[in-house]
């Protein structure tokens, strides 16, 4: 692995050069929190954030997107809408990259979804190692402290400079054309290892009180527990835990038509399995009518169902759900620990 280095003082120039040539999005501050948004000047870009409110999935699976436009008269006609404008996503933490990698697999498996895949292909991802840990994060325990793929460049702040790991050829030429990197020395590379392990160590303060690989088995025999009802009695069915999760991708599809009743579009938008009508069908039957059944479904999906599909849990430990859930019942760490406790 060849590591490069750019001086911190050169970073603004690098960002500015990118802005000149590309649409650049990155993390910005808003009201004391962090959000991804369009970066118009290097000062706006924030790299020492702990965690964003909404994960970067919005770039590949937007909250609402048009699948196609239609005209219903004089002749039926449809025009697909697929966006593939190249852009740079600057500043993605490894756990979010891990989530994107998972989502890539979901949208490519079986019938591939080009609406997602084209957006994904158009993106250059510049990762950054966290320098701060959000209060509810536990990505270190989820094995998401580092990733080996899914980025074009990966930055690590080592004090006066950034170590840059090249993850793809596109990343390499982006770096060479827009910055003045020099090879990192062995010492500097070692420093990166040290910094990474220090931050992981801080993050490890939160995590499971038992090996996380036991979660699927734990779930396998927890289905009938009263535990779910007890927890879910506080659930607002607000879907917040779904919407802020980087590994949740369920969506609803609807038609919007203009007032002329001729032109319109079919759109998809974020949906959430915690919402009351998620599994409700036209006859009125609801396959997950109770709060408890929906609440349980989410944890099974994270810890067991997708594990069966992906051989990995569909949780990367960002802790977004935990900090966004108002009654504070969505935190996987608390939940699985409690469930395990209950076991004994």
């Amino acid at each position, binding site marked *: 692995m060849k590591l490069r280095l750019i001086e911190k003082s050169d970073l603004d120039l690098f960002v500015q050069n990118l802005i000149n040539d590309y649409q650049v999005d990155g993390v910005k501050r808003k009201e004391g929190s962090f959000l991804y948004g369009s970066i118009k000047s290097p000062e706006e870009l924030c790299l020492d954030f702990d965690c964003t409110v909404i994960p970067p999935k919005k770039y590949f699976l937007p909250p609402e997107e048009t699948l196609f436009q239609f005209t219903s008269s004089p002749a039926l006609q449809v025009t697909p809408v697929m966006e593939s404008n190249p852009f740079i996503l600057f500043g993605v933490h490894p756990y979010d990259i891990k989530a994107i990698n998972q989502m890539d697999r979901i949208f490519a498996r079986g019938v591939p979804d080009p609406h997602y895949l084209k957006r994904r292909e158009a993106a250059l991802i510049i990762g950054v190692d966290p320098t701060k840990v959000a209060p509810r994060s536990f990505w270190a325990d989820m094995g998401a402290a580092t990733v080996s793929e899914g980025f074009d460049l990966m930055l690590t702040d080592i004090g006066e400079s950034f170590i840059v790991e090249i993850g793809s050829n596109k990343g390499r030429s982006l770096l060479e054309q827009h910055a003045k990197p020099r090879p990192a020395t062995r010492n500097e590379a070692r420093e990166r290892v040290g910094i990474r392990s220090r931050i992981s160590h801080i993050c490890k303060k939160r995590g499971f009180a038992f090996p996380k690989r036991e979660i699927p088995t734990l779930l396998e025999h927890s289905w009938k527990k009263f535990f779910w009802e007890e927890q879910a009695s506080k659930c607002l069915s*607000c879907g917040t835990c779904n*919407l802020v999760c980087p590994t949740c991708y369920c969506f609803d599809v609807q038609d919007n038509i203009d007032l002329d009743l001729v032109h319109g579009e079919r759109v998809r938008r974020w949906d959430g399995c915690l919402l009351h009508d998620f599994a409700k069908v036209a006859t009125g039957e609801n396959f997950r009518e109770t709060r408890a059944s929906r609440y349980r479904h989410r944890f099974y999906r994270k810890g067991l169902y997708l594990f069966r599909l992906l051989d990995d849990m569909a949780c990367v430990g960002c802790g977004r759900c935990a900090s966004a859930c108002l009654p504070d019942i969505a935190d996987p760490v608390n939940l699985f620990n409690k469930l395990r406790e209950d076991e004994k």
Partner: protein
Amino acid sequence: MDKPRVAFFDFASCEGCQLQVINLEEDLLQVVGAVEVVSFREAMKGHSDDYDIAFVEGSITRHSDEERLEGIRRCAKVLVALGSCAALGGINCLKNFHDQEYVKKLVYGDKALLYETYPARPLKAVVPVDFEIPGCPINRNEFAMVVKAFLLGKKPEIPNFPVCVECKMAENICVFEKGMTCMGPVTRAGCGACCVTEGSFCWGCRGLVDDPNADSQRDVLATHGLSVQDVLGKFRLYTGFSEVAK
């Protein structure tokens, strides 16, 4: 297909919802092209009792309103409650928490006897209502959506999930993070979380979702420093007529 004949009516309200219909601007011209408006007192002279769809704004606050509403119900094939006053009782129900005689005296003093009033209520407390477009005021795009649904023979779909969903989609910072409190978790979406987006918090103007977890919401508000009285106040602001608020 014959153009559906549409009429607008109002009871105790601020008429802000009908104003939203006018505020459709150019789209309004399209709407009036697609339907035949036979009655719209706020914007036109003339009236007819022959209509298919009645959009009714406002709460019912006196016996004489009931007769008029029943008349409208008899004429209309479809009766739509327009806005929170009509759909939920809305802000008008704030007066229900006081003795009605006291209320009259407070405002009209010794002339109180001249004024008729009883506790405010939504339309559905008096006649069957086919659809409700909640909101104080209504979201004009939602109104347009309902009109289009009727034209297409579709059932209008008003969201049955809480405002938090749209709030997340709008990438707002949750107001609880900012030290305020919010009714979003139990309030029916459809407004695009506009209040939070504009820097305020959700007041609950669209009423509750079908299956709100009111108890949990009360707990959440209490954990964020609201007294029992304040929590009650939050629920009563718009949904005073419903049981959960009591």
